[in-house]
């Protein structure tokens, strides 16, 4: 999974670098070429999203089958490690397609070349949403003894923390802090990239820059608010 995330990150950086280079070299003349690149990029996203959803479906089905099998010949500890890690994989393999299909939908809808592809991508977005929801519900199947809240619960975060023990909360807090730091850093670099992009291409990205800036400020304020001395 680490490998997959690394690959996606490198692909995003590579695409951004390549795009900026093309703009620098060819400027406005690269319009047609960029449209082709965008089109194929969205196709790759659709294929990747569909493949991940199929993978998540297979892993989820296998996990449920093993969980319900009372005669499985696997050590308790090994099975718990397996189900915990599979749950993580299924969660990622359904969350990533949601983002990929949304990006593909944006490209397809803006290009407005093939209504079939737009329709297919819309279906993919809904399937991703449904499977993402199902992946979250998986935790109640693999840990039936725990009093875990339903994903639709209004106070999901509070109830999840209440149902978790100190070790689990420690793991979650460490992981959330690390991903929050990574997200903040990446948003900062995205902001810089967009500023450069606006200058180089003369295509204003101010709207996106403002949105990202606001997200960074709100996120920082929310964190400071949550950890304040009460």
């Amino acid at each position, binding site marked *: 999974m680490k490998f997959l995330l690394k690959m996606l990150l490198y692909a995003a950086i590579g695409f951004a670098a390549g795009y900026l280079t093309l703009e620098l070299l060819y400027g406005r003349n690269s319009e047609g070429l960029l449209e082709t690149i965008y089109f194929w990029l969205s196709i790759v996203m659709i294929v990747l999203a569909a493949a991940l959803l199929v993978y998540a479906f297979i892993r989820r089905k296998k996990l449920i089958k093993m969980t319900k099998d009372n005669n499985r010949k696997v*050590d*308790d*500890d090994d099975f*718990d490690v397996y189900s*915990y890690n599979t749950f993580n994989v299924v969660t990622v393999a359904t969350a990533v397609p949601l983002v990929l299909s949304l990006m593909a939908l944006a490209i397809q809808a803006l290009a407005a070349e093939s209504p079939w592809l737009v329709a297919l991508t819309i279906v993919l977005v809904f399937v991703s949403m449904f499977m993402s929801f199902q992946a979250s519900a998986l935790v109640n199947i693999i840990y039936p003894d725990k009093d875990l809240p339903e994903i639709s619960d209004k106070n999901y975060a509070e109830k999840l923390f209440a149902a*978790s*023990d*100190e*070790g*689990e909360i*420690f*793991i979650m807090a460490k992981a959330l802090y690390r991903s929050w730091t990574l997200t903040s850093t990446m948003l900062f670099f995205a902001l810089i990239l967009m500023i450069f992009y606006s200058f180089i291409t003369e295509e204003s990205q101010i709207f996106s820059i403002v949105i990202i800036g606001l997200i960074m400020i709100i996120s920082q304020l929310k964190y400071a608010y949550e950890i304040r001395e009460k």
Partner: protein
Amino acid sequence: MKTRLRELRARDSLNQTQLSKLAKVSRQTISLIEREEYIPSLLIAKRMAKIFNEPIENIFIFDEEEL
């Protein structure tokens, strides 16, 4: 902090899942403590002491500098 949890668990032929049920915690918490990545609360330490019939300081061993 060093812990003898793994050794005591082997002595009593318990796997992590069984110990986690006895200690009323998750297997992840047992694994975390055994890997010495987390210092458990007094409540968990007391439960472990009761399960293994050993004083807390025989299960969780601190360096002088840590105390």
